[in-house]
């Protein structure tokens, strides 16, 4: 669609204009759906709600409704576009599927007599492809495959790989690690005992060689090897791990509690979390980038396509109507801010 002056882009005006055009042209066009607007009524919303209820055992909230409607509209848009591009015409799956459906309608004595191509044509005439989930899914799939196709192996520059690594730090991060020794105190009165032991250790300037005997036995031992944050949590619990990464090394610190008792820690060495070099994870970066680009191509193509297929809303509730109207025109699902603003605008 060409860029229009701001007023003319207002959704309501847009809808009315198109609606009017269609009313006028109603006599000229067939009942072919390609040029009709996509209509969202309370009936469609009720169906989406019912499906959601069936699987989640509860009604969707307003934001979820918006997402459901958005997804439904997007699918309808892609189905229409795929048809427009003729993707339905040469598709073996769709032809067979519709021929099968027609066979069901045939009187038994005529089974097998009519060639599949005729059955297919007849099925199209009857519009059996309109709401068939398999046909629709297939059309969307073929359209997206066409958009997503990348020719040749994935190529990315060093800056692109570095940027992807940065953007996905959490996934690639090498966790921090620490090597600690600890004194463990189990059983009743742990807090007091641990504090007492701590002052004794400090006043006697004891090193970690006393760890096994200063307190109680501990299943994992008292001198642990270099462990990642996660593994340390498994061994000593969350509080001890937090302390291991916050306290100064080379002295007795604590006490902290775990599921099993109290601990005094001595941190020997610590390695902060770090990002690996691009070379270490090149394969995974390339794979991730390829996936990201594929999804982005589909996303952009979907957004562009939305302009070509107008949406008409006929929804009773004015707030829901406003939300959906906004959705129908915005490139992405509204953020929390926008929802909140719509609420206050009510």
């Amino acid at each position: 669609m060409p860029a229009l002056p701001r007023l003319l882009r207002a959704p309501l005006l847009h809808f009315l204009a198109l609606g009017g055009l269609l009313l006028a042209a109603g006599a000229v066009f067939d009942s072919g759906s390609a040029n009709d607007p996509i209509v969202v009524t309370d009936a469609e919303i009720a169906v989406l709600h019912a499906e959601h209820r069936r699987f989640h055992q509860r009604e969707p909230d307003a934001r979820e409704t918006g997402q459901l409607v958005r997804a439904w509209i997007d699918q309808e848009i892609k189905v229409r576009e795929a048809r427009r591009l003729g993707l339905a015409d040469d598709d073996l799956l769709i032809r067979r599927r519709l021929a099968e459906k027609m066979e069901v309608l045939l009187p038994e004595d005529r089974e097998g007599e009519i060639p599949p191509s005729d059955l297919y044509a007849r099925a199209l005439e009857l519009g059996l492809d309109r709401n068939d989930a398999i046909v629709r899914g297939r059309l969307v799939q073929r359209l997206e495959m066409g958009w997503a196709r990348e020719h040749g192996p994935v190529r990315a520059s060093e800056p692109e790989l570095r940027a992807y690594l940065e953007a996905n730090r959490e996934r690639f991060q090498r966790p921090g690690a620490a090597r600690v020794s600890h004194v463990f105190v189990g059983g009743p009165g742990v807090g007091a005992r641990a504090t007492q032991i701590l002052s004794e250790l400090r006043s006697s300037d004891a090193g970690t060689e006393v760890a096994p005997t200063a307190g109680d036995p501990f299943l994992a031992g008292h001198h642990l090897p270099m462990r990642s944050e996660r593994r340390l949590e498994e061994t000593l619990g969350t509080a001890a791990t937090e302390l291991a990464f916050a306290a100064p090394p080379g002295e007795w610190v604590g006490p902290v509690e775990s599921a099993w008792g109290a601990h005094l820690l001595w941190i020997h060495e610590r390695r902060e979390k770090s990002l690996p070099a691009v070379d270490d994870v090149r394969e995974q970066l390339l794979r991730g980038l390829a996936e990201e680009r594929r999804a982005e191509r589909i996303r952009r193509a979907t957004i562009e396509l939305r302009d070509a297929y107008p949406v008409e809303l006929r929804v009773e509730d004015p707030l829901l109507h406003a939300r959906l109207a906004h959705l129908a025109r915005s490139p992405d699902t509204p953020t929390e801010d926008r929802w909140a603003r719509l609420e206050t605008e009510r």
Partner: protein
Amino acid sequence: MKTHPPRCRPTWTALAFLILLSPTALLAQAGGPNCDDYDPHRSPFFGDLHVHTSFSMDTLYFLGNPESDPNAAYRFAQGDPIGFPPIDPAGNPAFTVQLERPLDFAAVTDHAEYFGEVRICETPSHPGYDSPECQVFRSGNIPAAFFEWFFPLTTTDPDPERFDMCDGDPSCLELARTVWEETRAAAIAADDPTSMCEFTTFVGYEWTANTATSNLHRNVIFANEQVPELPVSFLDAPRVEELHDAIETDCIEAGTGCDALIIPHNPNLSQGRMFLPQSFDGTPFDAADAERRARMEPLVEIIQHKGASECHPAFSPSDEECAFEIVPLTNNALPPGADQPPVREGSFARDGLKFGLEQREDLGVNPFEFGFVGGTDDHNAAAGDTEEEGFSGHLAAIDSSLPGRLAQVSANPGGLTVIWAEENSRESLFEALRRREVYATSGTRPVVRFFGGFRYDANMCGNPSFAARGYAQGVPMGGELDAPGLSARGQAPRFAVSALRDQGTLARPGAPIERIQLIKGWVDERGHAQEKVFDLVVAPEGGSDSLCTVWSDPEFDPDAPAFYYARVLEEPSPRWHALQCDAAGVDCSQPDLVPDHLSNCCAADIPREIQERAWTSPIWYYPES
């Protein structure tokens, strides 16, 4: 000539030497061969060795998420969310699930039988795409798909046929090669190559034999990336002996560095056939058969979605804990609601262990000398998804909704495998699996040590070097007791068990330990296997954060071969169905008001509370040694 499974004697000697040599040997660990956190006294690693993804035919005909492939499974195991079915026409999952605590290791084990067939049914350009089997596959008619695809796996035909579509171009086996390569690639990509060793994968698959409707399924776990070109499925090798032959020829003896072990599961559904000491044609085992069985199958999965297989109340009437998560199913090839045949002895791990001792009396070799592992058998690529409250099912769209789960209310979220190994590397973990230094849990993460020996101190629990002594003066779980030695002759062996409760998470703390039990099996003078359960230590009211005890066998007979394994019980906690039914507002005191599809919330024979538990691998005692 007496044969034993491989022993690691040199390692124990080296360990003892290391400990005696320097008290600071434990400090300043510079890391081991592969990992920074190498610990010669071993630490526990948690994982799941039984996971199905969209590469398995039943994941798909149960309307699972087609995007939940092996890569997704390994990401889930490390903490990423995954989409659960049903998938709407736009391709969106119904909801997502995420682990609260990642796993240390995992193996994807898809059904090898139909790798190629599934691919054909997904490829519209293939001539087989519209075959009747593929149409049924995609139809969404689950009973029809089950009958079309699962039933062929019950054949007794020595040369099973594949579907006609398999002869197309490319053939099923050619496509299976591609699927297998993708499986292997996913395992390679997810395995942590750095010295942080955060996550380990194993290449694997499931050999799905349901011969004559008996569940004889086994998972094949490979030691490394050197795997055969094709996994040997039931359709290629319908007899266990043939599977063993193929693994030996294509892997273990192939000279490529390949190694593998085999883990049977669901003996509870085998109608007594899992632990029969005979070949399919009825020939009893000879010593060579027994030795091979023990060597190739050193582990059994005794807890998973389709029930617990430790023991059964019918055959162990004095052990009330045998009723834990027993499913009222004996034949998984029957349609739901059909009458089930009665349970048969030989369908539970304890039976197998006992038969194994008896066999050793006859053959000189114990064919059923196996340790215990736990798994999920999940079909959503959700490895390690064992949490009760959030349990979202393990059979794709069949049980991703509460009514669907309640239709199989006796099923459970599955268990975990815990491996005691020096580091989280494939070599270290696989060796531990081989020597059976593993235990199974019913889904939680208590930490359990189990040692046996003739020279332990009665007050070993008070010793800070508990584990070091355990290794130096005896054997860990999965091992065989050393000879008592002259000084200890006539004395009974001592067993030391130490358990730490699962700390859980902030949102869901773990339950304290309630008791430690020991199960002993032995062969009496008449050559019949017996069993007995001992309560070693019971925690005070409310349970303990940790329990430790050293126990000496009061009924020890030095001439009787025996096995001993520890069972650690947690304090009771709510079962998944009680939690989810309560959340859905079901009130069983008013049964008339409970909707039909939730009526199993009130099933009288399913307890609302369970005691989660750990089962250690056994330690064996043989008189001549």
